[in-house]
């Protein structure tokens, strides 16, 4: 029995080392301690009635929270700059759908095609997240999601936000 335990400890240490290595090297690495919503029912996906076949996939709050921890994922705030400055999902870029032509060229400089993108707006009363998501797909971005719960659901769950310019 003592052999079993000694070997088990050894194997666990080996796994620890490999896990730390892979979480340093892999593109989808996540922080060792993450932020998770404390709300029940965060795994229900809100899909707007206007959704159509071929739209980017809609994701739930918990999927958005999970993806936000991957270094490979960028949030896109489709709201106006005032809303974005007042408060946004931490790390999000502002790509206001109503002024897309003014922003597109400069913002997309920071948007490599091989990353994953999550478009959001205020919440389930706005459609700009979906419209932005469609535009992204049209522009050749392949990994695009729409988080229709949006800013409101994110903030209420106590997940990381940023404020200011």
């Amino acid at each position, binding site marked *: 029995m003592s*052999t*079993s*335990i*000694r*070997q*088990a*400890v*050894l*194997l*666990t240490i*080996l*796994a*620890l080392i*490999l*896990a*730390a290595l*892979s*979480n340093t090297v*892999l593109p*989808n*690495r*996540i*922080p*060792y*301690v*993450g*932020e*998770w919503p*404390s709300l029940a029912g965060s*795994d229900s996906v809100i899909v707007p009635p206007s959704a159509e076949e071929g739209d980017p996939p809609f994701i739930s709050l*918990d*999927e958005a*929270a*999970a*993806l936000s*921890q*991957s270094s490979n*994922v960028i949030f896109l705030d489709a709201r106006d700059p005032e809303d974005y400055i007042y408060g946004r999902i931490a790390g999000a870029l502002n790509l206001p759908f109503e002024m897309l032509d003014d922003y597109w060229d400069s913002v997309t400089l920071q948007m490599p095609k091989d990353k994953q993108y999550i478009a959001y707006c205020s919440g389930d009363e706005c459609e700009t997240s979906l419209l932005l998501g469609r535009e992204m797909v049209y522009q050749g971005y392949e990994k695009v999601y729409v988080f229709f719960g949006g800013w409101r659901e994110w903030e209420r769950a106590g997940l990381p936000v940023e404020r200011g310019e």
Partner: protein
Amino acid sequence: MNSIMKSGSRFVHNDYLALVLRIFLGVIFVYAPLDKIMEPSQFARIIYNYHLLPSELINLMAILLPWVELVCGVVLILGVQKKGSLLLLNFMLTVFMVAIGINLIRNVDLECGCFSVSSKSKSHALGLLLRDVGMLAIGIYLMINRSTRFDLFKSRS
């Protein structure tokens, strides 16, 4: 009576049966973690949805657990550190069964996170539980079986 015991012992200590089952269980545990290693954030979300761990431990578990599975699977196939890997595998299977069992009682529609992190793979908890029972039975058999004939390095004890 004597001959029954003899054939029973032959079953328990059969080298070939042990080898086949060892490779079977090992391959399962090598294959199972691959998807989870590539998409740790999605595996973390599945662990989060089990509602069993404090949120500080969710990511750590999502990073470490697939590698414990993979390491155990590889060494089991090779027949190195077999006792330790079987102890860990049987322990993990027991923990998985408890986790699935709790969510079966809670009546939650569960994403297993067993072999894939795709959110389309919702599974029936009872089926998952039975599958784990089967694997645990194999794991316990291999623990009892003392065959070292096909081990890469023979352990002395």
